[in-house]
């Protein structure tokens, strides 16, 4: 799809094309909305709770503390190598719960669709949401659908809220101590660059794939085996640099990362060079940063390695005693530089 055609392609509509494309009327809350739900959404997402179609989903009582999160997804293009907006919408929210030590209990899904969006695309995204939710072992228990005018919402925006339950003490920056090590579950920058490349250079055949994936099962295994996980973070917007700089700032301690240990795939590195971007600042949607006491590092790596998403996990850094809230990178060359949170919007519309 070339740039000029991009916006109109999804939304071109012949007058009586209600059959294959979304119309404004589908968002009206009336019979056409019901029809859309029955034909394009519920077949994919349906489950006992959702199917009740009450104004709220009533969840069973569960012991523990509630974790609650929300995220908006405005990625362009809607589909990219390795995933789509649907997979992103589930993974992002599930991972936000998981890194706080919460078991996901249910997702709420808000769809904002553009008039003229092909129903086929909507259904593919719904199927992707269903598959990803199944992977994560969670359901979409409630939702809402609105339709806005042609050209707005670039096809589709999704907002996902998630509720989870934390039993016991959850990870928190205050639990991070001097001497703790920092583990990263795999390679960086794959998601952001896969999306950017798909958007900017669709003609290129790339080996790049987004890493978008729900990590809650991997994290659950980790936390079962290692009780001392101090803190976790998924390095999405702002990349690893943003997450690490934040960790230093919040704990007030000194964080050191070792560049040699940070995995960047060759195709990712090359794409970054072409687009003038630094992989350390690029979003990841299937990775987690974990802080554990040094004594538990080997055990943590073993636990992560038992999950296919964690086979490339490595210790990439440590927390040091200086109370300056600074994050430093020890470079491949043996030099040092400060890692900061990226200043502005390096990568628009990648999640």
């Amino acid at each position, binding site marked *: 799809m070339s740039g000029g055609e991009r916006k109109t392609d999804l939304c071109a509509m012949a007058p009586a094309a209600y059959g294959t494309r979304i119309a404004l009327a589908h968002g009206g809350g009336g019979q056409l909305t019901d029809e859309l739900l029955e034909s394009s959404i519920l077949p994919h997402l349906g489950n006992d709770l959702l199917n009740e179609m009450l104004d709220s989903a009533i969840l069973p009582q569960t012991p523990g503390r509630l974790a609650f999160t929300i995220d908006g997804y405005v990625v362009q293009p809607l589909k990219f190598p390795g995933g789509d907006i649907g997979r992103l919408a589930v993974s992002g929210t599930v991972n936000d719960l998981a890194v706080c030590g919460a078991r996901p209990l249910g997702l709420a899904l808000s769809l904002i669709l553009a008039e003229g969006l092909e129903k086929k695309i909507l259904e593919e995204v719904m199927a992707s949401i269903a598959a990803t939710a199944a992977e994560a072992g969670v359901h979409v228990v409630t939702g809402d659908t609105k339709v806005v005018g042609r050209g707005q919402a670039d096809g589709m925006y999704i907002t996902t809220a998630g509720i989870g339950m934390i039993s016991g003490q959850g990870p928190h920056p205050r639990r991070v101590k001097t001497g703790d090590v920092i583990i990263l579950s795999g*390679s960086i920058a794959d998601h952001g660059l896969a999306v950017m*490349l798909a958007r900017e250079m669709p003609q*290129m*055949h*790339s*080996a*790049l794939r987004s890493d978008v994936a729900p990590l809650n099962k991997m994290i659950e295994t980790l936390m079962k085996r290692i009780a001392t996980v101090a803190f976790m973070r998924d390095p999405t917007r702002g990349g690893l640099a943003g997450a690490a700089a934040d960790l230093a700032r919040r704990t007030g301690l000194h964080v050191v990362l070792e*560049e*040699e*240990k*940070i*995995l*960047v*795939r*060759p*195709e990712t*590195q*090359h*794409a970054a*060079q*072409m687009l003038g971007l630094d992989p350390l600042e690029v979003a990841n949607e299937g990775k987690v940063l974990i802080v554990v006491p040094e004594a538990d590092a080997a055990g943590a790596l073993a636990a992560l390695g038992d999950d296919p998403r964690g086979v490339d996990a490595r210790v990439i850094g440590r927390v040091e005693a200086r109370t300056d809230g600074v994050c430093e990178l020890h470079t*491949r060359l043996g030099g040092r530089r400060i890692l900061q949170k990226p200043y502005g919007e390096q990568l628009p519309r990648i999640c």
Partner: protein
Amino acid sequence: MCLAVPAKLVTCDGTNGVADLHGNRVEVSTLLVPGVKQGDWVLVHAGFAIQKLEEDEAQETFALLGDMAKAAGKEAAASVAAERGFSATTRPDTRKGGSK
């Protein structure tokens, strides 16, 4: 802006080549390096091959040459570097400690 990477020409038909750049396949023009053929290693910048590389040099990804025999024809400037023993700085062959 000046980034160029070594790549192998996987196809080459006239001046139209395809290079594999770390897993990203790009079309490259060989207009600026007449005489290269499929299987050759080249330095690629912005869609153009700008220099032919010897395979072993390219394979070591930017290892500096120290061998004077190979540097024959690459004149005085290179020999100065070599005379001072500024030879191969081998890089790890995948970037930044990673494997695919």
